């Protein structure tokens, strides 16, 4: 849990070339553009491959422009992707229709197509999110969402989560080390009770901390809103990016829908 947890937290944040044209885009443009690519991909009916391929090409273009390498994309996508694909992996075995033999297995052709299509959509959605995260810092994403009128409370909760995730992960790591230092090595499920107590203790500490943070905020004049230092500026490059994404994908998607 602990060390691995800290490790996976380190595998977040901006990657690639921070000076690239994609990194310099307004966060709002990237949120809308990449969510748009996901939406086009996800809403495409199964086996309309040209649209999915176009989405994949659009994502590749973004990745190349941002100089985010396939290694980074893979290392981040693999955290989420297996969970999503796992759900779809049984479809070829249970779906009826024409059956084909694949070595020891007999699978449904229709099921295979469904699986391939679901897996590609999952990959498009995941890679879009990974690219947003690799080209935009989390605070910028939040700022963008705030300016796009996302509920302030949700944005504030996400901001606190981001800030204190590291603090709590660190506390969890220290408690885990302290358990091991006293010879704690669970061999079966019944001995896992100590982990539960660690979780309770973490929860109580976090609750206490929340009160202290709130008092510290009040001490600095907090009165319900968090004013921002920098305003976001939507430039021509941002418009061009959105027009480019929309121009490449929307006509194709509309054609597919009409056919």
């Amino acid at each position: 849990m602990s060390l691995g947890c800290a490790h996976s937290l380190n595998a977040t944040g901006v990657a690639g070339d921070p000076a690239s044209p994609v990194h310099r885009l307004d966060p709002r443009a990237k949120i809308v553009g990449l969510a748009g690519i996901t939406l086009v991909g996800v809403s495409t009916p199964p086996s309309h491959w040209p649209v999915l391929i176009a989405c994949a090409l659009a994502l590749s273009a973004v990745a190349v422009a941002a100089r985010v390498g396939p290694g980074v994309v893979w290392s981040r996508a693999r955290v989420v992707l297996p969970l999503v694909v796992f759900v779809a992996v049984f479809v070829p075995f249970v779906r009826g229709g024409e059956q084909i033999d694949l070595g020891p297995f007999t699978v449904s052709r229709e099921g295979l197509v469904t699986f391939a299509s679901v897996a590609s959509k999952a990959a498009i959605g995941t890679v879009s999110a990974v690219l947003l995260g690799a080209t935009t810092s989390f605070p910028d994403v939040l700022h963008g969402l705030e300016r796009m009128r996302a509920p302030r409370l949700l944005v504030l909760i996400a901001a606190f989560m981001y800030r204190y995730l590291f603090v709590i992960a660190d506390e969890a790591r220290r408690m885990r080390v302290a358990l091991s230092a006293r010879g704690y090595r669970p061999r079966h499920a019944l001995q896992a009770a100590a982990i539960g107590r660690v979780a309770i203790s973490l929860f109580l500490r976090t609750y206490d901390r929340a009160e202290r943070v709130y008092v510290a905020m009040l001490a600095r004049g907090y009165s319900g809103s968090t004013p921002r230092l920098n305003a976001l500026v939507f430039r021509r490059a941002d418009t061009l990016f959105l027009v480019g994404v929309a121009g490449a994908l929307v006509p194709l998607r509309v054609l597919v829908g009409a056919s």
Partner: protein
Amino acid sequence: MSCVIEARGLQFRYPNGVAGLDGVDLSVGHGEHVAVLGPNGAGKTTLMLHLNGLLTGEGELAVAGIDVGRGDVRELRARVGLVFQDPDDQLFMPTVREDVAFGPLNLGASAAEASARVTEALATVRMEHVADRAPHQLSLGQRRRVAIATVLAMDPRLLVLDEPSASLDPRARRELLEMLSRIDRTMLVVTHDLPFAAELCERAVVLSAGRIVADGRCTDILRDEDLLAAHDLELPAGFDPALLRRQTVAAAA
């Protein structure tokens, strides 16, 4: 108005019946650096929270010209800067720059004005180079200095620090001490690091069981072994308050 803090018979009782403050009388003048010494549970933090109107007890308390409990709370919080013990409680924004700007923006500063104050405050604590980092990427010593900057950016008349030297390594402690001695403001330092108090403050008060039991020159108080022992305070072994740098400087002058 002659005093920054003027407390008369200040009392506070927590909801569970425990007395936090039991009749505190304290006057602190402009530009003074005063150490508040006392064991855990003496009421040091309770007193600190009163100075900013976060707790209100009975008795009289005026801070920076504002009658606490009746005056303008927003203005009070602008004039009194509290630096809490754990910087992770104080730094909650995603970047250092935004965190330092939080106070000035709450006080109604424009973005340009807030930016200027951020630059100035970070320069005072020598942390300009971390402005765009996230707080969790900094060391404890760095986070504590940034926490001080978040309050300096509000340009307070009174700076209150809760255990500023806690858990710092000797070098970070030394740097913090040097940085704080350069800040020319009225300062209340709540601590049980007695040598730290002696180097930073010319005056000390001892708070014990919610009352001020001693008030005088810091070096005199630290030399009073009976007083320290009676209130669970202790100098590090081998530490001689007579050899303090402050004294040698005074003797040379």
